[in-house]
Each structure stands twice: as structure tokens, then as C-alpha cells.
């Protein structure tokens, strides 16, 4: 998941759709995010590249909608409802996820295990 500045980033992503749960007057998704271009990337425990300022999932509430939808801790959010999450501030990411008029969020997330899975499957069928 490392990126070369100036080059397009390629990643294997998984599409996850989470239905927001209404709790009182809030709509919650059931996970916590960390990271952002205004944060310190060196403290991110989940990223391989310690200069990666992307948004990562740091905690999942067990039994919440995110857990049920398949989100895992350590996932990097690439897109939320079509909005890019690789170059946003922490607050912008929070806002995109907590829009009050949206019931459902469609995320594109990536994780290390996805790449490995793809490599393995590609390894079975080597390219010509």
C-alpha cells in the first residue's frame, strides 16, 4: 500500500456497505477512524509505510453495523460514498462518514490480506 508521489495509486479494494444504526438521535456506524493529512503518520500502528497519511480503522465495536458488514480493524478507507479518503484531513473524513441525511455508507477499503490473496490467486495463473 505504499505510494510513489506523482504516480497513480493502485490497490486491491473490497466494497463494504454499512447500514447506519439509529441510536437515539445519532446515526452510528460502529467503528473509529484515525489518521488524516493533518495528523502524525508515524503513530499509525496499522500502516506499513509510516508516511501514509490515509484514514485507517482503529477500532470496531463488536456487534455493530461495521462489524456485521465485514469491516476489520486496520483497514484503510479509500473511498466513502464516492468521496476520496486518501488525501483528506481527519475532520473531513469524519464529516463524510457522519452525514445525517445518509442512511448507508458504501466504503472501498483495502488491507494487506487482500493483496496477498490476489497475489496468491494470480500465482496460480501466471501471466503470459
Amino acid at each position, binding site marked *: 500500500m505504499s505510494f510513489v508521489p506523482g504516480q497513480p495509486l493502485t490497490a486491491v479494494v473490497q466494497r463494504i456497505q454499512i447500514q447506519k444504526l439509529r441510536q437515539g438521535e445519532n446515526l*452510528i*456506524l460502529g*467503528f*473509529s*477512524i*484515525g*489518521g488524516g493529512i493533518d*495528523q*502524525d503518520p*508515524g*503513530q*499509525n500502528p496499522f500502516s506499513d509505510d509510516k508516511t501514509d497519511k490515509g484514514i485507517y480503522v*482503529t*477500532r470496531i*465495536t463488536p456487534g455493530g453495523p461495521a462489524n456485521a458488514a465485514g469491516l476489520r480493524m486496520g483497514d484503510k478507507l479509500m473511498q466513502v460514498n464516492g468521496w476520496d479518503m486518501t488525501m483528506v484531513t*481527519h475532520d473531513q473524513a*469524519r464529516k463524510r*462518514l*457522519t452525514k445525517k441525511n445518509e442512511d448507508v455508507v458504501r466504503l472501498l477499503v483495502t488491507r494487506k490480506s487482500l493483496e496477498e490473496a490476489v497475489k496468491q490467486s494470480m500465482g496460480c495463473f501466471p501471466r503470459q
Partner: protein
Amino acid sequence: MDTESTYSGYSYYSGRSRGSHRHGERSRDRHKTRSKDSRSEKSVTINTPPAEPLLGDSAVRGEQVQDDNWGETTTAVTGTSEHSLSQEDIVRITKDLEDSVGLDCRRYFTLALAVILGLLVFLTPLAFLVLPHLLWPEKLQSCGTACEGLFISVAFKLLILLLAVWALFFRPRRAGLPRVFVFRALLAVLVLLFVVSYWLFYGVRILDSQDENYQGIVQYAVSLVDALLFIHYLAIVLLELRQLQPCFSVCVTRSTDGEIRHYNLGQLSIQRAALAILEHYYCDFPVSNPALLSASKSRAAKHLAGLKVYNVDGEFPEAPAEGPGNNAAAGLVHSQSRAMIAAAARRRDTSHNELYYEEAEHERRVRKRKARLVVAVEEAFTHIKRMQEEEQKKAPGDVMDPREAAQAIFPSMARALQKYLRTTKQQHCHSMESIQQHLAFCITNNMTPKAFLESYLTPGPTLQYSRDHWRARQWTLISEASVTSGLKDGSVFLLRCVDFSLVVTTKKIPYIQMSEEYIDPKSHKFVLRLQSETSV
């Protein structure tokens, strides 16, 4: 209640006072102040112009509003003629005041008192030293070395006292204030009491008993001079040092065009504060230009001239409207005023529109004239060139001095300048002579055309113009508190001259409570901001 006092600020400039030096107190006798008041009443009564609303006072005062001959019976005078009349009056009366015997009498009286006090003070120690030699020379002990040393000390201390008194008191008079300067009067009384008590002691214990101990007498004289030096120190502290620390912030507003300035003053009496403010006025406030106010006056007149109230049915009660008993007349007046306000509100008022376009047009005109003026002046300045030293010897013909050079290039810019001054309504402030003088001055000092023009583009402080354009010569201090009382927070007083008045309000500079906090230089430490985690 108002205490009116006359305050003439220009006695310094009149030729007579140039030589008179002040020393000691200024005392003003009460009855003289009162006679001055009667004269000031003659000079400073300006009624408000008739454009003031009909609402309010005029009807309540019991005049017959329905009287159609009011123009002949009332004493209100129209704006312009009143100004010209009272200005002539003022000029005549100012001349009278300056020639008056009363003013001189007061000034010479205080001067005489001061001189007498000064002589008394200086001659007393010398008299103390000399009198024993004159009166009982044979009984007197001879003066030893210590005693002669004391002579030197007396001499030098007297010299220092003389110089110090000259420095503090022998200064040209700044102004004539309405009331006595309290501190100076107190100091004079103190000095007088002091010297008199020393003389008493001397007379009783030394002259009567014919003391032979000359050294003791010399020491007595030295102690007198020492004490006088200390009184002089007290004078410096009271008269000069006490008001240096700023204590009040005064806000001075000119009543005609609203120019506001703020000054910091120390603890002063109201009359001294007024003097300080007036001295700042001449240096800071732009010159008062009544031509600029005519537009707003005409607008105000138009507002009210459009509406007139006629009562077509019923007579008026003739009883006076003053007093609580006349409810009918008062009610009538109120209803009339209400009717006028309602009508004025309903009327489609387009005066704001006119004002906007008029001002835009005026600004455009001024800018156009200014552009023409700048070009004309720059072109005029290119016609002359300063001659260098070597050239002067080579070509003696057709050489001009600055005044002639100014006269030579003036006609090419005269018209543009005249038009510009007329557009900005400044033409009465500058005469042709003064403009040519200024031009010669600029040429002599190698100034650029822009430097020459600056004094005409913006109105300068009052002091820069010649004295007949000042419109602010005779000042009257109007105050509810006594003018010798000190400034307080919230005190308000007026300084009125013929054309306008300066409204002065004071505010106290607050007491500042400061506390300290110590920061250890080693305590400046930083960490990177932690990853913040937000749950969504």
C-alpha cells in the same frame, strides 16, 4: 449652572506683552471678572438659525403660533447676515479689549506683585548679612574662615536660585486664564509667609538683642537660602511635574464638522486643561472651513421647509404655555408635532438619492480638476532650472531670484489652481500673494511640484494659515464645575469661539492591576500531536 468666563488667548501676541515677563502669581479680582462677563455677553450671543424645528420650545414658550407677522416681531436673525454682523462686532470688540485699560491693569498688577516678591526674596539674605555690619559693627565678632566659606555658599546658592527662578518663571506668557492659577497663588503666599517669619525671627532675636555671633547670623542666612531652594523645588513639582503623568483621556469634538481628537492629560484644573487642549487645537485640527457646511444646512432647511402646520379652525388659548396648568395648549402642540412627524415619514423622501449622486458628481469634478492642476504645475516647474555656480559666472543675463522665478511661472498654473480651490471651497484660505510666496519658497528649496501642491490638496492645521483665516481667536470656557477645580472622570466643558465650539469630555485612565507569572525557560517542551481517534 454655567459659569461663563472670558479667556483671551492672544495677549501674548499683542506687541505690548512681548516684553513683559511673568514672575509669581496671577490674581484675578472677582469684580473684574464680572465686568468682563458683561462684555462677553455682548460679543458671544449667537441664536440658533431659524431652520430649527417648530416643534418644541418655540410654541411652548407661549408665542402665538398663528401670528402671521412673526417675521417682524421675533428676534431670530437669518444665518448669513447674523454671522457677518457678529464678526464685525467681534473684531471691534477684540480691538477694544486689547486697548482696554482693565486688562492692562490686571496684568501690570500681578507683574508688580511678582517683582516685589522677587526682590524681597533675593534681598532678604543679603540684608541679613549686611545689617549687623551697619548697625553694630564694633560689637561684631570678626568673620573666621568657616564664616567666609559660608559667604561663598550663600553667593552660589543665590546665583542658582536666581537661575532657577529665571528658568521657571521668566517665560513668555502663554495665555490669559479666567481665574487665578491656584498653585502659583499658594506658592506666593507660602513664600511670603516664610520670608516674613524669618524677618520676624531676625528682628526679634538678632536686631533687638544685637547678637555678636556673626557666624550664627551667616548660618541663619544660609538656612534661609536653602529653604528658598526647597520651596523652588516644591514649585517645580507642583507647577511642572504633577501634570506630566497622564491621568485622563479627553475627547475633543468640533461642533461644526465633527472633527474628533483624543489627548492625554495629567491632573490639571479645568482652565489649564482647556489651555492645553487649545494649544493642541491649533496644531492638530484642520482649519475650520464654514463653506463646507452649507450643503448640510440647506438639506436640513429643505427637510422642514416642505411642511408647515396651519390650524384652520379654532382659536388658541392666550394663557401662557408654561406651567402645568395649560394642558390644552400643550396638547395642541403635541398633536401638531405628531402630525408633522407623521407627514414627514410618509413623504417620499428622495433626498438621500440626491445626496448620493451629488457627492459622486462632486468627487468626480474634484478629481478632474486635480488632474488638470497636477499636470499644469508639473509643466510649469519644467520651465525653470536652477543655475549652477559655474554657469552663473558665464551667463549673467536673464538671471532671476526665486521671487521673480515664481512670478514668471505662476500665470501658467494660476487658472488651474484657482479652479481647483474653488471646487474644494478653499479659495478664501489662500490669497494670490501667499501662493506666490509659497511657490518661491518651494523653488528655493528644490521641492518637486508634488511637494508644492500638498499644502493645497489637503487642509492643514489652523496654525499654518494666516491669522485672519483662523476663525478662532477669542475663546470662552463654559463649564458647570468651577474652572479652578480639577479634571474628573466624566467632566464636560465647552470651549466656544465665534463660529463653532469644541466639546470636551474626559475619561479617567483606569487603574491597572498587574500580576506576574514566572516561566522557567527550561519548561518550553513540545511533542507531536497524537493521532486523534474519532468514532463514527
